[in-house]
Structures are given as C-alpha cells and as structure tokens.
C-alpha cells in the first residue's frame, strides 16, 4: 500500500495538474488524469506506471519548485512507482527485501548463489577448477541438474510475475475485453518507447536538453535481453528436439543470437547507467536509484560473463566462468519479479489500460 503522506502529495500534484492541463500533449499521463476528478491510491499507481520519467512536464511547469505549490510530477510519480513495485510483488516478503537497497540485496544473492553452485559442482572439482579444453559444460554441472534448477526457478518466477501483474491489473480496474486495435497500440507504444519522443522531439533529461540516447540505450538493453532469451530457447530446442548438444559453433544460431544480445546488454546498461549520472537529479526519486543500478549491473554481468564464457570456453577457466555465469543468470531470474524488471510488466499493463480508456 502507498503511505498516506505519499498519497496526499500525489493528490496535491495531480489536482493542480488537472486544473492546469498545459502538459496534456506531452504524454499519456495527462489525458489519463484528465479523465478523473479525484485521485485515489489506485489512480496514482496507474498514472505512475504510465509515466516514462522524462522531464518535459517539470520544465514546462509554472508551479515547479521553488513555487509554493511545489509541483514535480516525474519525481512524485517515481516515488509512487517504486512503492507500487513493492506492494504488488508476490510473495510480499521477497518484495520487501528489495525495498531500500536493491543493490545490496542483489549482491548478497549473487554471492550466495555462486557459493551454492560451487558447492554443487564440488562433486567434480577437477571439472570446475581445471577444465580440459573440451568445453564440456555438462561435465561441470550435469544437464539434468541445470534443467531442474532453471526450470524450477523459471516456473516460480513466471508465477510470481503473473500474480504480480494480475494484482496490479485487478487493483487498477483493468477489465478483460480490449479490441485488437487498442491492444496493438499499447504494444507498439511499449516496443517503440513512443512516449520518450511522443511530442515530435526526444523528451528532455535536463532543461532544454533533448537527446535520443536514453531511448536507444533502452532499446539496446531490451532487445539485447530478448535476443539472449531467444538464444537460450533455440539452444534448448537444439538439445531436446534435435539432440544437438552444446558447445555450438560461432556461426550457429544460438551463438549469433546470444552474442548480439550480449553486445546489446553491454552497451545498453552501461549507457543507461552513464545517463543516470548526467540526468537532472530533481527528476528522480532516490530509492529508485538502487533498483536501477542493481538491475543494470546484473544485466551487464550476465553479458560480460556470457561473452567471456563464449570466448574462453576451450580454456581451463571454462568451469569457473560457467559457474559464475549461471549464478548471475540465476540471480537475475530470481530478482526479476522484485527488481526494476517489473517496470516493463506494469508499464505495458498501464499502456493497455490507457488505450482501453481512450
């Protein structure tokens, strides 16, 4: 639940916005708020997840701080958004673990999982510490163990995400029927990040500073992530359907997909992290910083360890690299429903709702 004080601050800001409306053609947040007269916690949650956190409405605001009304839409919605991740997470205990310091939680999880995997692979210590150059991944961790572990975790993560999404959708009054046109518009908006350049130019990250980089680095990250998922899926099909076992050639589909995805996950997270540093700090809420850094850090590590494993798979380091890479992937999977990743889930749902309403 959102704290009362935050709800009151959000209501103040949105009430001023609704009486002003100058920003209504910047992004969907304003047309959506104009459909309401009063703003309850659920409305705040919906609008917060519709907001892409650019700076247009702050710089255009005649009531922005230091004006006594103190209107800062991106900041208050960022705070609501961070809270909404926690309050919709399932199971709630794990959601709370991410509150405050997602970075440290992720780091602790990472160390724990590495130790755990090392322990598991202790059954065959020589395969881990001195690989023989055959790139025999399953010699380090048996295929069945890998499938069981990742299958179970994926199932859990998928359920957690579905439950979280369902809770969000139900709370914000989603409903069921949507025309295919509206559904498609929501998907198009999400895939193209339309609302980071919705008014014709790129949205601002500082006063009168409009650069396309945030959008492009996000594309690198998101599509990099998708390519890596595709690589894993193709590899799984190769293994189980065709009996073609890893390691795969550099020219094979899993490697091509994984390597290009990995490249995206090197460039994207680095770029986004760098942009965070140059961005006007008054646009962001402090607590969301840890969530961002943790998620970007894990994505970057996934890519670094994955690419290192690819290049060094025939060396003696293969065993250790595999354990570390799998650990990173496991942690990123486990933290998906509680970390920054969920912004994608709620953003898409909020866009669905927006297009249903409009």
């Amino acid at each position, binding site marked *: 639940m959102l704290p009362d004080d935050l709800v009151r601050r959000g209501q103040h800001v949105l*009430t001023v916005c609704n009486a*002003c*409306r100058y920003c209504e053609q910047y992004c969907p947040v304003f047309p959506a708020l104009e459909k309401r007269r009063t703003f309850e916690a659920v409305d705040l949650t919906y609008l917060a997840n519709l907001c892409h956190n650019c700076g247009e409405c702050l710089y255009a605001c005649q009531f922005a701080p230091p004006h006594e009304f103190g209107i800062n839409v991106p900041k208050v919605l960022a705070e609501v958004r961070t809270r909404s991740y926690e309050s919709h997470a399932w199971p709630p205990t794990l959601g709370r673990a991410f509150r405050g310091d997602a970075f440290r939680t992720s780091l602790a999880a990472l160390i724990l999982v590495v130790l755990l995997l090392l322990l598991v692979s202790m059954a065959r210590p020589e395969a881990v510490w001195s690989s023989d150059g055959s790139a025999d991944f399953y010699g380090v961790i048996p295929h069945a163990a890998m499938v069981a572990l990742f299958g179970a975790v994926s199932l859990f993560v998928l359920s957690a995400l579905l439950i979280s999404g369902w809770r969000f959708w139900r709370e914000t009054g989603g409903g069921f029927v949507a025309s295919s046109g509206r559904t498609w518009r929501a998907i198009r908006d999400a895939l193209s990040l339309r609302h980071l350049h919705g*008014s014709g130019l790129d949205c601002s990250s500082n006063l*009168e500073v409009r650069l396309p980089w945030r959008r492009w680095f996000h594309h690198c990250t998101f599509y990099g992530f998708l390519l890596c998922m595709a690589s894993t899926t193709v590899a799984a099909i190769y293994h189980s359907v065709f009996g073609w076992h890893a390691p795969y050639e550099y020219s094979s589909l899993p490697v091509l997909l994984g390597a290009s995805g990995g490249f995206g996950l090197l460039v994207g997270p680095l770029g986004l992290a760098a942009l965070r540093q140059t961005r006007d700090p008054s646009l962001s809420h402090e607590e969301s910083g840890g969530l961002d850094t943790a998620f970007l850090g894990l994505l970057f590590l996934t890519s670094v360890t994955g690419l290192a494993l690819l290049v060094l798979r025939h060396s003696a380091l293969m065993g250790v690299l595999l354990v570390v890479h799998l650990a990173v992937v496991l942690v990123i999977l486990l933290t998906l429903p509680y970390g920054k990743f969920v912004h994608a889930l709620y953003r898409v749902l909020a866009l669905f709702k927006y297009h249903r309403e409009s």
Partner: protein
Amino acid sequence: MNHKPDYDVAVVGGGNAALCAAISARRAGARVIVLERAPRDFRGGNSRHTRNFRCLHTTPGQYLAGTYTEDEFLSDLRSVNGGAIDETLAQLAIQRSGTCPEWMAREGVRFQAALHGTLQLGRTNLFFLGGGKALMNSYYASAERLGIDVRYEADVSDLRLSGGRFESLDVQGGGRVTTIRAASVVIASGGFEANLDWLRQVWGNAADNFIVRGTPYNTGVPLKRMLDAGAQSVGEARECHAIAVDARAPRFDGGIVTRLDCLPFGIVVNALGQRFYDEGEDVWPKRYAIWGKLIARQPEQIAYSIIDAKSAYAFMPSVFPPIVANSIAELADVLTLPRAALEATVDAFNCAVRPGTLNLSTLDDCHTEGLNPNKTHWAQRLDTPPFWAYPLRPGITFTYLGLKIDERTRVLMSDGQPTANVYAAGEVMAGNILLRGYLAGFGMTIGTVFGRIAGEEAARHAT
C-alpha cells in the same frame, strides 16, 4: 562624455515581449543585454503563466481550425473594448500576428492543438506545447545560443533620459548598483499589477483584497520612471485584465489553476447574499474577463459562485475543493452569509427560471424573468443538493496604464514627439490597444508582434 555604450540594445524585462525584442535585435546584428528582475527559476514574467496566442490565419493549419480573418479579429477586439482604440496599432498587431508562428517556430517554440476544456479557442488561438513557461524556456535557450547577455535578479531602478533620448540605466542586484549604457533601450517590463502600493493609490483599500495572478516582479518601476521623465501615458490606471479567481489562491503567482469556470452554471452572490450581475450574459470565456472588475466593486471584494449537484462536474476542475452543504441555509452558515438573504435570493431565482433546453455551447433559451438582474442564458433552478460554493476574489492579470507609442514602437513624450531611442513592447504598451476588455491570448499577440518590431527598430537605431 561620449564613451562607446556597453551594449547596442538594453532590454528591460524578461517576458515574452522582452525576449522577442532581444532575439530580433540580436538577429539584426546588435549586441544585446536582457535585464530580468526575477531569479532564473521565475523568469519570464506573466508569460510563464500563459498558454496561447491569438492569431490571424486565412487557411486552416495543423493546430488551428478554420480561418480567423482580419475583419473578424478586429471586430472581436472592438467588441471587448467598447470604445475608440488606436486603429493603426490594432491593425498592425492583427496583421503581423499571422507572421509570428513561423518566426516563433524558428526560435524553437512548439505548438499543440487546443487543450481540452478550451476547444472554443481552437480556431482563434494557437497553443504553446506545454504552455508559456515552455515557450519562455525555448526563447531563453535561443537567446543563449545567439550570445545575448541575460542577467537575472537585475532590478532596473533608474532610467536616465536627456532631451527625449535614453542615456543609461541603473541595475540593482547583489547589493550594488551598476550603470549600463546602451545605444537604445526596449522597455518590456510589464504593468504595475504586482505593486500593491500603486494598486492601493488607484483602487483604495479594495486593492488589499486583490489577488495577483501572475509574477510578483511586475511592480511597474520602469513604467513609472518613464512617466516621470515626461513620457506620454496611455490607458486608465483602473483598467486591467482581471478575472474571478478562487479566494483561497496565493497572493501572487497562482496562475491558471485558481480560475473558476463554474460561474455560468449557477448564480454569483456578494457578501450580502445578493446577485449583482447576469451570470449568463455571453458564451464563456468571452465574458470571462469581466468578473474581476465586477467583484472589485462589491462589498469587501468577495463573491460566491453557487451551483447545485446537476452542474457539479460540468466544468473544468479547480485546484481548491468546493464548499459543500446539503441546503442553502447550511451553505449560508458555512460561508457566513446572511441566511435569510441567501435563501430569498435562491428562492426568487428558482421562481424566475423559465423552462428551456439547456445547451452550454450556445446562447440557449434557459433564462429568468422578472429579476434584477436577470440571468439571460443557462438559467437552471438550484434545487438538487448537495450545493457547492466557491469563494471568489478579483484576480488581476495585468494593468493597461502604459506608454503611448507610435507604429515603430517608439515611446512618445508628452509633447507628442517620439523619443530618439526608447522603444516599448508588451504589457507596458498594451493600453494603446486594450481600453477595458480582454481577448484571450491577445496579450501574447501584442508582446510578440511589438516585441519583434521594437527589437528590430532598436537594433537599426543602434547599429
């Protein structure tokens, strides 16, 4: 004493007219300084609260529906003024307004379609994407790129003229006074609406109950200095653009969100619980601008808009919550109005309402008979609780007393002769064209058109 001046053009002010003048002068090759009295966060004068610009156009555009011809524009202007205006300047403003959007776009200004709730302006007014502060941000960014010196918190305390010729000005800021010499000067410092002492001289104690909708920095000091130096004035000191705002608004800078759009939906009573003007006189917002001065003439400068549940959601939401009661008597108690008087007013009104078909978008046939004053349109009985009330005060936007100018924006001295190098643009000369009424978005038209002319003329004189 014949030093080379520090600048070719000094611009006094930092709003729309000032920046249009500064940019035009710079583009004409002049070295320009802008002296903005406000700190950077509050730069832009009253323009930061604006949202659109009234604009001539003979073909429909991307953001402007239909056409708005010179004749129609001029007749709208005449109808709100109800008197003789400077036709030459009025026509100049109207004709040149059509050339402004292109110029503005070149300086980075972006536009948008008319906002929800203001669709009636979609044919006559071009809206700035994000409103007036976004517009001013674009102009300031353009000024920086062009190499214009912009000084914030620069309070112009004195202007020296000699024989109808500007010599130098003094700027107070950071605890010291700096003298700046310039070959020409553009006065674009707004009216005196934020100068409570001056308002009190004009309006008496009533001024203590005025709310200043815009910037607290428009105290009219440069205007006063110019009048003291023998410049010819134009307009009445009492005339201004003033609307009804929520009485709970901050004293300054409440901007757009304190205005109330509910007046035509019910009745408006004064502190005695009596109606005093036809709430249904004309289509909103055409008559929107008369309510400030109407309320200024009521006892204690307060009034209350009262509506019932039928109209509760029919108008743009306001930033302050309505005062709600289940009966008129209870409402009178909450508002501390005389209960019997308010009940009598509402009863008389309800009895006088004639049957009709409500149509908010036109002058409909819902009216009262036998009242003084009658409500001539949209009259509906106040009979459905809960009843809502909003307290109203005069919200002064800008004053019309200003500097008389010629068509090159040169300030005229009291002998009718133009000054050699003093130009004026924006609110400070709006009184040449606006006598009493107001047309939405016309202040920005005046600022842009005459700002550009002043900048070009000042640069031509200086270089």
